[in-house]
């Protein structure tokens, strides 16, 4: 990358916060307090996830993942991705480093896309929660539609070759 946008964005955020503070200190403090809550949440989740990714990177041989979840892994690979995504807990951004580790170890784009989408949307405790608040009919119908949707989305991503820039980005 030639320009580094993140420091610029941080500077803009700091400037806007200072401006807001000048006219509405309560709003600026609310921004900072909400941010603090989210920061604490991320700080409590990301470090152990990254440690586990580091261990995965150091210990699991590439051939294993290639065999289990690579291009030729077929329905079994997709099932593994589905199960991995369902049993895991945590927000989607926690799945990013894990998905990337899987890609680097030779898992297919299709399987990683399935893994990410399933991680995001299908969690057993979350389904129970949804049933409680929005009704069993609503939750189960949404689940029944989400699973085929994920398989189609991942298939389309493979079709458009969404991986190409993944190599550029490295």
């Amino acid at each position: 990358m030639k320009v580094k946008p993140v420091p610029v964005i941080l500077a803009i955020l700091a400037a806007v916060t200072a401006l807001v503070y000048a006219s509405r200190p309560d709003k600026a403090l609310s921004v900072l307090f909400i941010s603090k809550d989210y920061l604490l949440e991320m700080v409590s989740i990301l470090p152990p996830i990254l440690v586990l990714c580091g261990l995965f990177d150091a210990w699991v041989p590439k051939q294993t993942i290639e065999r289990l979840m690579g291009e030729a892994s077929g329905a079994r690979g997709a099932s593994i991705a589905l199960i991995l995504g369902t049993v895991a807990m945590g927000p989607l951004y926690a799945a990013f480093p894990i998905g990337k580790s899987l890609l680097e170890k030779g898992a297919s784009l299709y399987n990683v896309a399935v893994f990410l989408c399933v991680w995001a949307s299908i969690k057993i405790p979350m389904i129970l929660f949804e049933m409680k608040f929005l009704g069993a009919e609503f939750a189960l119908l949404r689940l029944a539609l989400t699973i085929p949707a994920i398989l189609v989305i991942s298939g389309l991503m493979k079709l458009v070759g969404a991986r190409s820039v993944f190599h550029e980005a490295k």
Partner: protein
Amino acid sequence: MFIAVIWGVAAAGLLLSWTKSRKKTRAAIRFFRRSLLSLAPSIVAIIWTIGFILTFLPPGLILKTIGRDAGFQGVIMAAAFGSVVLIPAFIAFPLAASFLRQGADVRAIAAFVTTLVMVGVITAPLEVKFFGKRFTFWRNSLSFVFALVIAFVMGVFLR
């Protein structure tokens, strides 16, 4: 609970790894440090933005835009809203239920819940860092389109 488990598993893994091979454990720690340092600035920027959005977004406006009279446009707005905000499911479901009781369109609620979990505009910069722009663009935009499809199919059954 989840947090305690994940820290425990990571610590146990590190310890086990250290007794088996110091070299590999050092490599794992280097991997950890490298990824944490490269992620930290983006994470702070994303979180700060969330702080602004949640502070300045008026809740009454949300309900008006996704009500039953809003129709197709309301469903799109709900899907867009779900794509932009980042709220945990245990807050989102009760919130969605209260919108539904107050007269929101069931399709809008389905679209909101689906994009909320599957589409992340705010976390997109982070996703780009891991998977590149193209992957992020396609995963999020396809998820958005399919959230609308899911919402309309649900509308047919739940009306």
